């Protein structure tokens, strides 16, 4: 297992405190260990300290660095590139979805995210 624990560790990134609370709750109910942060910059700090994250789930639209840019940083890193990255967005923009999937995103979820969306992802979490 990626973290060495029985629980998979998911890093959730969203600048909205409401959405962060909801996605963290969905993940915890699905038995994931969750670290929730409010920015891509903070997510990269966490990843530097603890690269044994099993999945990243990030909002697309965030100030400063957005989810797509975070995805690119992760996929450019030799230490981090194997971590699956899932993008969330409240807007269904086909070009945006295509661009993220082409950059290596595991999936693209339209908000509001449901527990069934997370269940669908569990097979893709890094082991």
């Amino acid at each position, binding site marked *: 297992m990626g973290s060495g624990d029985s629980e998979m560790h998911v890093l959730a990134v969203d600048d*909205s*405190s*409401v*959405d962060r*609370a*909801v996605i963290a*709750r*969905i993940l*915890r*109910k699905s038995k994931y260990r969750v670290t929730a942060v409010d920015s891509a910059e903070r997510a990269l700090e966490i990843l530097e300290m603890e690269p044994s994250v099993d999945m990243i789930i990030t909002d697309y*639209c965030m100030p400063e660095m957005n989810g797509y840019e975070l995805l690119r940083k992760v996929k450019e890193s030799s230490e981090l590139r194997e971590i699956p990255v899932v993008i969330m967005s*409240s*807007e269904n923009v086909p070009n945006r979805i295509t661009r993220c999937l082409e950059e290596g995103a595991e999936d693209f979820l339209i*908000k*509001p995210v*449901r*527990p069934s969306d997370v269940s669908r992802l569990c097979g893709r979490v890094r082991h």
Partner: protein
Amino acid sequence: MDYVNIRRQAASIRKGLFDQGYLDEQFYQLEDLQDDASPNFVDEVVTLFFRDSLRLMANIDQALDKCAKDFNKLDVYMQQLKGSCTSIGASKMKTECTAFRDYCRDENIEGCMRSFQKLKREHSVLRQKLESYFQQLRQAGPIECATRPSK
């Protein structure tokens, strides 16, 4: 304290929120996420929502007060607010956020202002009703279980 009546009042407020279109299906999703491990989850998320929405609406107010209207900035703020409304199921507010963004796209400042005033009224009503609802729930105690209104 008459807990039965308090619970009945809470249920009535909740039913009214759905029947009058203030809340939609997403609120049920939040309730489904609440359990013994997180017994106040919905109350906590709604509290976060009203804290954030007040901040965003203050930003929008400031942006609308400026002489030079930045429709891009207004749209960004409203996109954030709409996202939060969607996440808690604040249906009427979400509709008004969409209307505001349409006016931004058309650079119709009068439309934006009218829409924003309506949004503030919807926000105020929803806040008052949800605060009343959660106050009743707290008084009723932890035994209270939200049930879906009969169709």
